[in-house]
Structures are given as structure tokens and as C-alpha cells.
């Protein structure tokens, strides 16, 4: 109890890799070991990483779909209410409300709310916005924007055990493994 470090809570173990292929194979091993709360950080998108990490197809589509439907029917409802129900507006002898005339606007509304749904759903599922992340204060981790690849297993993971996890990461061939604190 004499240094500040003793009071710190561990965030997780960070393993560094030099090539995307090494990071990919390490991810496969972590996936097979059954970890759930972990992530891979790379300078750019690595093809095949989704499969290597065992990630399912993103659920963002559902947000887009449902918001898009709301946009479509909301647009129709808005035009029906404004041009037909609340204040009838006859134009060129056509019915006050027609799905044809309303379609372009309803369609635009579908796209607008669909886009909002995608953005909102993405932020929600990624638990963003987030003001701080423990990895950001690690000086070595800054290399992730340059030419290094990191596999990070969080301490919250039910399978997490400082020694066992360390051994696993060592086995994947990482040259540098570090404990990151909160």
C-alpha cells in the first residue's frame, strides 16, 4: 500500500502484434478459448476479422428497418392529416389524399429516418458516445493508429484470469503483453 498503482483496478490484458495476420490468428485462438468481453484494435479494417472474432452479422439493420417503416407510414400519415383531414387541399381535381402523390415524400422520410436509425443504432450498440477509455491513456496503445495490432481481453470477462489469460496471449505469439488499469 505504498504506491498509487496498488489502488488501481485492472481493465484488462493487452497483447501487441506486428502484422494483421498474427492479430487474426491470435483472435481465432481467443475466440476458441471462449472469451466474450474482448476486442481487437487495428489501424485499418482487416478482412476476415469478423469471422476470426466470431462476430455475428450486425444488428444495426433492425434499427434501420424499423425506423424506415416509421418514416414511411409517418410520412403518409403526416400528408393525410395535413392535406386531407385537418385542412383539405384540392389540387387539379385529384383526391385530397392519394398514396401516389404522397409516395415521394413518404419515401424521403423512409430514407431520412432509416439513416437516423442506422446512426442511432450504431451508436447505441457500440455504447457511444463515451468520454474516456482506459486504453487511451496507455502510451504504447497510441501505436494502434500507426502500424501495431492489439488484442485486448477485459478483466470483466467471466473466463478472465490474470495468469491463464497471460499464458494464452503468450501462446498466440505476442511479443509484448501488458496489464492495463482503469
Amino acid at each position, binding site marked *: 500500500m505504498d504506491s498509487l498503482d496498488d489502488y488501481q483496478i485492472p481493465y484488462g490484458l493487452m497483447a501487441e502484434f506486428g502484422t494483421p495476420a498474427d492479430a487474426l490468428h491470435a483472435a481465432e485462438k481467443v475466440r476458441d478459448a471462449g472469451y466474450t468481453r474482448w476486442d481487437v484494435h487495428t489501424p485499418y479494417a482487416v478482412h476476415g476479422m469478423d469471422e476470426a472474432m466470431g462476430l455475428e*452479422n450486425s444488428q444495426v*439493420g433492425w434499427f434501420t*428497418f424499423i425506423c424506415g417503416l416509421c418514416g414511411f407510414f409517418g410520412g403518409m400519415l403526416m400528408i393525410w392529416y395535413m392535406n386531407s383531414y385537418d385542412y383539405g387541399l384540392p389540387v*387539379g*381535381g*385529384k383526391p385530397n389524399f392519394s398514396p*401516389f*402523390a404522397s*409516395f*415521394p415524400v413518404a419515401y424521403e422520410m423512409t430514407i431520412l429516418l432509416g439513416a437516423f436509425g442506422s446512426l442511432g443504432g450504431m451508436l447505441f450498440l457500440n455504447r457511444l458516445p463515451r468520454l474516456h477509455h482506459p486504453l487511451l491513456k496507455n502510451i504504447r496503445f497510441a501505436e494502434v493508429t500507426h502500424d501495431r495490432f492489439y488484442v485486448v481481453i477485459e478483466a470483466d470477462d467471466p473466463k478472465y484470469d490474470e495468469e491463464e489469460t497471460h499464458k494464452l496471449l503468450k501462446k498466440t505469439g505476442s511479443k509484448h503483453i501488458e496489464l492495463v488499469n482503469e
Partner: protein
Amino acid sequence: MTAKKKTSAKKAEPELKLPEWAGKVPLILLIAGAVLVLAGFFADRSHFAHAWLVSFMFYLSICLGAFFVVLLHYLFDSYWIVSIRRVAEHLACLLPLMVVLFIPIAIWSGSEFVEVEPDAAHHHEEQAHKTIEATEKAADVSGDTHSSAHQEEAGHSHEGRLAFYQWMHSEKEYKDTGKTHDHAWFAKRGYLSKGFWNLRWIFCFAIWGFFTWMLRKHSLEQDKTGAAECTRKCRVLAAVGVFVFAATLTIAAIDWMKGLEHQWFSTMYGVYYFAGSVWTSLITIYIIALFLKKTGPLKDIVRESTLKDNATLFFAFTVFYAYIHFSQYFLIWNAAIPEETFWYVKREDGPWWNVGMLIIFGHFFVPFLMLLRIDVKTRPEVMITVAVLAWFLHFCDMSYNIMPLIHRFGGWMQNIWIDIGCLALMGGALSMVFIYFFKQHPPYPQKDPRIAETMGVYVPLHSEAKASGK
């Protein structure tokens, strides 16, 4: 892969091993179709002629769409099309051969044998009357004495039988008597003349023949030589070809289908036919590719991701078609000019209303919602269902364009066996030629620069290989 292995593989691959029954299907279709067509010819000539046109336009759209896919590959240098390109090339090469199926249409194009279903005839008369009234009004306003002079002759000079392309009748009438009641034809006579029409269809088939066969020729040459020059030549062909394609497809759609009702106006008709064509063609290519993957020739070439990309493009065209057809309807509905609305008024009467609804839901909503999810695009049972739906709906779409001309109340359904006969005859004949083509040549472009990529094989660069010491 060594050079020796490659040659041995090449020898083995071109043989298309079909199951016993599947090899006979085209022949059975051809014979059954020929019997029905012959019976249909004597049973109801005017229905037969229109049914022939429906199925001609149906198969033409598949071949044109395949031609477009080949052009698309060379224009965008897309890697995923490589594995299915030979299928598309063979389908496109059927285009010039379809002239054989078109010649009957060219022969009967001007002859007056078309009988219109009684109720429909009455409706047409009413509609023609309305149009004449409207044009007269317009002529009064603009002081266009020229056109009103011709409308004095209003009325039907023919004895209940119409020409297949009625404007050809008007042209003949004008040539014989110097007068015609058909103002719509008179206004468009610069384009709608028999000689020019003949010139146009000959030009279309010739130009399709040149581009499709040249594209395939270079592609086949590359199988032997592996020269990059072949790809370069094809790119030039495609860059010119895409403009020629747009022009000829529009001419074909307007001359052969829209020309049935020459009074009508729609600036979107060409792109409307294009959207439906590529849509049907993509699902046809998908099914052929799936079949060839299952039976062997394209087992390792067509991957899950190829099918997914193919289905995604099909999905995009589902939306594109809906957008185009909606726009055509919407503009006409919004402007509400009788010269334009009569086309849809006719198609909102009686049973055609239901066909219109079927097109809205079956051509757009059902496939759109079915294919929204990414994972269904590689599931054969879903995609085969979608394919059957797409073929059926495209047939309905073609019929929706052509059949209301002669049928208003149910006559279409009574004679549907003639349509089926025409579809079977042409389908059988074309698939026999397709299978012949396929057996003649390697099943995929073997030495295309992007073949490794499309197969998902990573070939290291020379510098990389050197660095790793191999």
C-alpha cells in the same frame, strides 16, 4: 497450380454433366411448345401473334440483361462477375440468333388480322373518340389547321380488324389516299415509317451480334493465350457498347412493344424495359450459376460470395424497377393528359387492375422484403422461390404491356395456353443453343486477370514472393 495440371483440368471441365432428365427438358419444351403454338396459330391468330410477342420480349430481356452484365464487368472491372461471365456471354450471344424468332413478327407487323375482344373494342373506340376530341381542342387552341384537316376523316376505315402495329395501317392509308384520321401517327411519321422500322430492327440485331460475339471472341481467346490485350480490347468494346446498348434497347422496346399503341407517350419506356430486363436476367444468371455450382462445372469458381453479390445486384434492380415504373405512372397520373392516361386507364379496367396490383406487390414488395436480410441471398430455397416469382412477374409485366390491347375481359386467361406454348417453344430452343454453347467452350474465363481473386485465392506479388524467399 502447375501448367500441366491446368491443361488437364481444362480438358475435363467443358463437359457439362447434366442429370438424365435435365438434358431432355429443352427438347420436351420445344416439342410441346411447337404443338401448342401450331394449335394456337389456328385457334386464335391475333392472340397467338401477341403471345408470340410477349414471349419474344420476355426472352429478349433476359439476353439483353446478360449483355449488360458483360458490359458491366468490363466497365467497372468488377472481380465477382468473372466467375459467371461466361454464362452471361453465352446468354448475350443468343441475341443475334433471336432474329429467327423476330422474323415472324416482322412478317405480320403490317397485316390486318388483329381482332379485339368486343368489349375492349368498344372501349378503344370510346378512348379514341376522347383522344380525338382532346387533340381537336388542342388544335383549335393552337390554330393547327394541318392536323384538324386530317381528323375530318375520323372513324374506322377498316372492317373490324386492326393491323398488328396499327400505325402501319395509318401509314398505308395515308400513302394510298393522301389522308389519314390518325393524327398521332401523322405527328410521329418521321420515326414511324415501315422502311425506317425495318432498318431499325436489322440494325439492332446486327449491332447486338457484333458486340456480343466480339466480346465473347476476345474472352475465349484469352482462355488460350492469357493475354492482357484481350481484356483491353473488351474494355474498348464495352465503353462503346454501353452507349450502343442503351440506344438499341430503347429502340427495341419502343418499336416492338410501345409501338403497339403509338398514340401513347412515355419518355421512360426504354429505361423501364431495361430495369425489368436486367432484373430478370440477373436472377436467371443466378439460377444457372447455382445449378452449375451444384452439378460441378463451376463448383469451386462460383462461391457463396459470388451468389451473394449477384443477389445483391438483383435486389438493387428490384428497387430500381419499382422506382422507374412508379415514376412513369406518377408523372402520367400527375399530369393527367388524356393522350398519356389512356394507356393506364385501359389497364385499370377489369382483370388488368389485378395484374397491376400483382406487379406492384410481386415485382417489388415481396422480393424486396424477402431479400432485405443478407443471409437469405445465398440460401437456394429462398432464391429459387424468388426466381420463379421473378420469371412469372416479368411475364405478367410483358403481358400487361401487350395483352390489354386485344383483351379486356378475361380473354387473356382463356387463351393463356398459347402464351405458355410460345414460352415453352422459345425457351426450349434458346436453352438448347445455350447448352450447345456451354459445352463448346470452357465454363468460365480461365485466364482472366481477376480469376484468382474471384476464386478467393491470394496470389502474392512478385516482390512479396521474393521477400519471403520463394
